[in-house]
């Protein structure tokens, strides 16, 4: 964002203000959205959807996190670079969890076999 765009009067912004001022209406709307999404999360968890419960709960949580980041954390109006720091971190988080889960699922049966063999009485 160029500095010049901040100079115009926006939501009663004082001249020379650094950054973008959120209107109080926006803040209230964002809070209401987040509260509604919380109710949705609880409703999804209460319904018995099998594996979809986890996917749904994490999906709604991601949407909520996005809403917080874009409006409360001002990323919509901020420098792009800060946005990429957040998205990059999230990508690394997803990569690490995904890769380790993949790995542990792939070898878990070996661990189980090993445990069972150790517990089995030694054959004479």
């Amino acid at each position, binding site marked *: 964002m160029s500095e010049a765009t901040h100079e115009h009067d926006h939501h009663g912004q004082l001249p020379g203000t650094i950054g973008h001022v959120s209107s109080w209406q926006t803040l209230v709307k964002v809070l209401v959205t987040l509260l509604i999404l919380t109710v949705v999360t609880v409703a999804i968890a209460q319904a018995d959807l099998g594996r979809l419960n986890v996917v749904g709960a994490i999906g709604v949580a991601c949407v909520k996190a996005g809403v917080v*980041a874009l409006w409360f954390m001002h990323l919509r109006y901020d420098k792009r670079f800060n946005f990429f720091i957040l998205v990059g971190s999230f990508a690394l988080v997803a990569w690490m969890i995904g890769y380790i889960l993949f790995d542990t699922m792939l070898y878990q049966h070996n661990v189980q076999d090993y445990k069972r063999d150790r517990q089995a009485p030694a054959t004479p």
Partner: protein
Amino acid sequence: MGTGVAEHETKHETLPARPPELAMHFDNMHQQFHSGKLGMWLFLGQELLFFCGLFTAYAVYRGNHQEMFHYAHYFLDTKMGAANTVVLLVSSMTAAWSVRCAMLEQRKGLLITLALTFLCAGAFMVVKYFEYAHKLHIGAVWGNGFHVQTADLPPELLAKYPEMTGEKLKDMGVGSFFAVYFCMTGLHGLHVLVGMGLYVWLFIRALKGHFSRRWYGAVDNVALYWHIVDIIWIFLFPLLYLIG
């Protein structure tokens, strides 16, 4: 040498004075503000990776012991978790509002929103205290320390699985769920406590009239930190309290 300085001063006499808040190594207030913010964002990115270790532990334990997680989730009170979610969301809004007040130089509004954010954080910790106290009381703790008597099991759990006993749960390894639970919520709670300290600091500075439309980086950066604490709770709440 002395004449050189004098010449230099007369030459730039018409330039506006450097604001007292502007540190010597920055050109202007914009550069100073955005440098501080970049530093904050890098810290927040690191915070996510820091918590990622615990989320990975959660995912691996859960993937390998789905049944145990199902029984364990009966120990968590959804109502208390939901109440804390609402409290944190409201505090996130008041934190964002405090940034707005600082930018508009509304001193009274700034003090009110900072105080409200602090109070919401305090309410979160009070709820957390009751949750922890109950778990420690019945012995729903980490690892081999788990020693809940059958009579102390959650009523919903006993209603659905009348055969279940505290011993069976211990043998199943429910203690490792509570290790994950206490590590995740404990580390998060520690962040809330740090946030409360930061809001006291901001409140004192606002009382002294430190902030202006060009000098509110501290309010903005602490609010960013507070939002990340909120985002982490947004994930913790469904993962720990809701999914059975």
